[in-house]
């Protein structure tokens, strides 16, 4: 589904929340969301993603900036006039109501007729696979079921946007995997534009059409899961999404072609296009490479020389910890039983290589 090019459903423009701390909790955040898109807001705790979600919901007034929905700036609208569905990490069900009453709550406030309400509630409960649970109380349900009630309650009102605040964090691992696909499935069927807040890169990568990576209140990068994983725009993104080795290196153009040196050893030569635009002679850089991109060969094969520190079998791969001449540590993932894995015995000297296209280079 290519949605990024379709017209914006929601536009966030320089959205800022400053509670008077050292720096704004959310700092001039701007991006577009297309209709029906599933957007992930990903970042470590304290990055401003939850603050952003609360501003979306109207539970927090932005210091400045706009949220434009359907051509109108909604920041001054109270939450009850925004027509949105919010699913909390804590589910936030109404404990004194039955499941059906919970789901019908938004419809009742919208003065939807009894019959229509009943049929829409039934439909929503069917969508989250909870038919026949309408008469139960939230306390009688498991965590996963409560989660689904919360989703049903949010989607039954056909919201402009569905806001999910870490909805999977309180579930156990097995259920979390299940709900991941279920939420995505429900969203695809209903076509509701969704903003999904999470600190879990795995969730973001597997569920979202696009991921907005936030750090320190700022937007680091927004793109498809493949883009943010393979073409990280900043060293933060490269380090936060997936595992990455970061090797400090000095840039030089001795013979015309760019060259990166780490402690006197040349890294695989970078292409000119892969360098940051303003990087000049002698600039301190940081080269990021994924563990699975590192190739291990005999020490005489050429490349970076390194010593194997330890090698751990973790199931699908062997994780090898390596040390370069200057003490810099790297982690490589090798397939068990491969020739590479044979070479990577603790204490052995090896040569390391990777394709220059597997390397991302950032200013240090």
């Amino acid at each position, binding site marked *: 589904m290519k949605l990024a090019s379709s017209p914006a459903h929601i536009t966030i423009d320089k959205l800022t929340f400053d509670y008077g701390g050292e720096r704004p909790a959310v700092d001039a955040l701007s991006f577009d969301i297309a209709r029906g898109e599933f957007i992930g807001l990903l970042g470590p705790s304290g990055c401003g993603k939850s603050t952003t979600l609360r501003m979306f919901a109207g539970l927090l007034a932005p210091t400045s900036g706009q949220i434009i929905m359907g051509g109108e700036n909604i920041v001054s609208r109270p939450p*009850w006039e925004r027509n949105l*569905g919010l699913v909390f990490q804590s589910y936030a069900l109404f404990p004194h109501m039955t499941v059906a009453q919970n789901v019908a709550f938004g419809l009742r406030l919208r003065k939807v007729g009894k019959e229509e309400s009943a049929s829409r509630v039934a439909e929503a409960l069917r969508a989250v696979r909870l038919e026949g649970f309408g008469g139960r109380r939230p306390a009688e349900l498991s965590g996963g079921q409560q989660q689904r009630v919360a989703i049903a309650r949010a989607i039954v009102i056909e919201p402009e946007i569905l806001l999910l605040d870490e909805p999977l964090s309180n579930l156990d691992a097995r259920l979390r995997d299940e709900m991941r696909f279920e939420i995505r499935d429900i969203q695809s069927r209903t076509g509701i534009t969704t903003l999904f807040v999470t600190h879990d890169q795995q969730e973001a990568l597997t569920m979202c059409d696009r991921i907005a990576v936030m750090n320190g209140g700022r937007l680091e990068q927004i793109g498809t899961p493949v883009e943010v994983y393979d073409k990280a725009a900043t060293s933060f993104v490269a380090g936060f999404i997936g595992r990455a080795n970061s090797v400090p290196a000095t840039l030089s153009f001795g013979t015309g072609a760019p060259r990166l040196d780490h402690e006197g050893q040349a890294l695989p030569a970078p292409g000119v296009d892969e360098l940051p635009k303003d990087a000049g002679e002698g600039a301190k850089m940081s080269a990021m490479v994924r563990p699975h991109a590192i190739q291990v060969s005999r020490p005489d094969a050429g490349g970076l020389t390194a010593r194997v520190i330890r090698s751990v079998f973790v199931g699908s791969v062997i994780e090898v910890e390596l040390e370069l001449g200057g003490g810099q540590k790297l982690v490589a993932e090798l397939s068990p039983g491969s020739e590479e894995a044979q070479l990577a015995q603790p204490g052995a000297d090896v040569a390391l290589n990777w394709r220059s296209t597997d390397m991302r280079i950032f200013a240090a």
Partner: protein
Amino acid sequence: MTRFLSFISRTYVTLVFCIVFMPMAIILVISFSADSYLSFPPSGWSLKWYGTVLGNTSFMQGFRNSAIIAGVVAALSLALGLPAAYALVRLDFPGRALIRSLVIAPLVLPAMMLGLGILMVFTPAGLVATYPGLVLAHLVMTLPFSIRILQTALSNLGTDVDEAAMTLGARPLQVFMQITLPRLTPGVIASSAIALILSFDEIVLSLFIVGPRLQTLPVALYRYVDERTDPMVAVLAVLMIALSLAIVLVVERSVGFAKAFGR
């Protein structure tokens, strides 16, 4: 060793319970006395003092007054305490922290001082020995408790559920009536019960502002003990304990005390 320690701790707990409950046990026993003066153990048994209490106009009048006052005080404590607690927990306004600590001030002030202050204000206002006067005075004692209990109950609710209701289209008043208040029921019951018991048992403040026209049960009892010592006071004490116990039991059975006080 552990057996010895467990013996020690069991003895200790038993001792504490004895000290706490012994006076009540003695009073309970004396209330069934056939003697015409307070003595322990009684030389004979009878229920006649229970009959005498029920026939005593001063006590029955006092009971009626105390019940009316306690009922009104409990209702007003809730009506005034709930909005105050809500504001202190949910709303942000300048001086909130200060007001939070000032609210409990009446609990740390000596009751004598409060009573004297109340008397000084009530006398010119014509509130001495009137229902409104006693209700107001008792509110000074009960409101801090009510606000405190409701504050705890409200904080324990958190804001997620209310916010969820809000995003679903509920206005603040709808959220409060349909979501917050039903979830607050245990706290409402607990704070009302406490206000009821406190007001019904209140004596120090009452002593300052009762008069011959209007007397509460504890004051009537106190005055009576001053002049006479017969088992009637024991009967009255037992009845008052029974009433408080009944209220506590109602709270316990309906919501559970631990829950009512926010664990």
